[in-house]
């Protein structure tokens, strides 16, 4: 079975990621998508060049005092943050390219950051045919990051969003008013959009959902479960 990545994040979202200003849960979803999508990695490279050009001009933005230069051997043993993961080739999912779907698992960034794999997730039941697994964010970070598993043909509750929301398909597929999303595809929606996704009738769907603010689920099911799940 193969999948084709045809749904990419909004350029503005990718730029915010390249700028280092995308809220943490959204950044996780973009990192996961980029690990599967060569097209977006290429775009990010251009966007980082824009960052470099803007940084060159920071000295024009306001007075910056001269800095002392210390020979590097004097300053030693400074810790450099290690990213929680890095790309290691992985799937080469350029726009229109076929991505083999033989070994479906979570994207590398999620695997590394949370030491998780699809087989080891302790799913919690969210409602009939719906399970989720929340992923921790850094202390003080707002928003929501979770894996969602939806049974074949199951409707997800209608929901609107506070701020931006990204949905990355990890297995199976889902569809809504805007089309069908397969593995590697990402849906990037604003706070003025409401959608009611339906999981693929045969495959069901596992996806990563990231929101800038807690998702606001509506409808019978969600009203019923909201008090216990915080959704």
């Amino acid at each position: 079975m193969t999948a084709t990545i045809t749904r990419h994040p909004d350029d503005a979202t990718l730029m915010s990621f390249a700028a280092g200003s995308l809220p943490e849960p959204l950044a996780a979803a973009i990192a996961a998508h980029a690990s599967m999508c060569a097209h977006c990695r290429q775009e990010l490279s251009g966007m980082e060049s824009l960052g470099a050009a803007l940084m060159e001009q920071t000295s024009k933005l306001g007075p910056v005092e001269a800095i002392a230069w210390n020979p590097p051997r004097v300053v030693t043993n400074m810790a450099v943050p290690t990213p929680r993961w890095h790309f290691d080739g992985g799937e080469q999912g350029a726009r229109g390219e076929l991505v083999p779907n033989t070994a479906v698992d979570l994207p590398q960034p999620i695997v590394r950051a949370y030491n998780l794999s699809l087989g080891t997730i302790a799913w919690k039941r969210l409602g009939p045919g719906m399970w989720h697994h929340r992923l921790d964010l850094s202390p003080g970070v707002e928003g929501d990051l979770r894996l969602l598993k939806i049974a074949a043909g199951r409707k997800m509750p209608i929901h609107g969003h506070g701020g931006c929301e990204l949905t990355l398909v990890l297995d199976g597929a889902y569809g809504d008013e805007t089309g069908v999303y397969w593995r590697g595809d990402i849906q990037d929606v604003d706070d003025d959009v409401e959608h009611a996704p339906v999981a693929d009738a045969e495959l069901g769907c596992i996806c990563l959902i990231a929101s800038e603010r807690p998702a606001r689920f509506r409808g019978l099911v969600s009203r019923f479960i909201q008090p216990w799940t915080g959704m």
Partner: protein
Amino acid sequence: MVQTWAHVGPRRQSKGPPPSRDPVLGFMPRGLMSDLLARIAKDKDNDAFRQLYETFGSRVRGYMMRQGADPATAEELTQETLLTVWRKANLYSSEKGGAAAWIFTIARNLRIDRLRREVVWYELTDEMAQAVPSGDQAVDDIVAQNERQLRVRATLSELSDDQREVVTLAYIDGLSHSQIAERLSLPLGTVKSRMRLAYQKVRTALEDLQ
């Protein structure tokens, strides 16, 4: 011994015709950045590092301060950014982006880690590039990357004031789109469309280099 770049003497006189002046960096001849990285990588060349520091130090520091770092923290993060360059210059590959873009990503990651204390959801370019020591880079790559950075820099002057404002708030001040919308009292969609329009200019400028 501590030197201050404001007190550094005149640039060393080189033989032959003067190098072309970089429009933004002023004294920095084109192509020199990648060359400096190569010298740092190969010989741990202190002088090359000092030149790199003089070029990027104030910029990285200004970048950190715009995000709200106090002067001491900004100084520390600047040192750390450039020490990372010093230590990892041999892992840098121009295939993965220009030298300036590489330094930007190091500074950006440090800022997320130290100032925001959030997860660094990025690959570091050097980690992607481990197989290609910079000493073996094709000259074509270096030229292409310099060209790339020059074009992006030129694009900045083509941005409208509105576009420049939002990209600066995003890249330099570290504001999310929602924060920018709030700061400028604009709808979120307007912020995003200005960002997109700004990037379209960059994309067009780089089209034939991809």
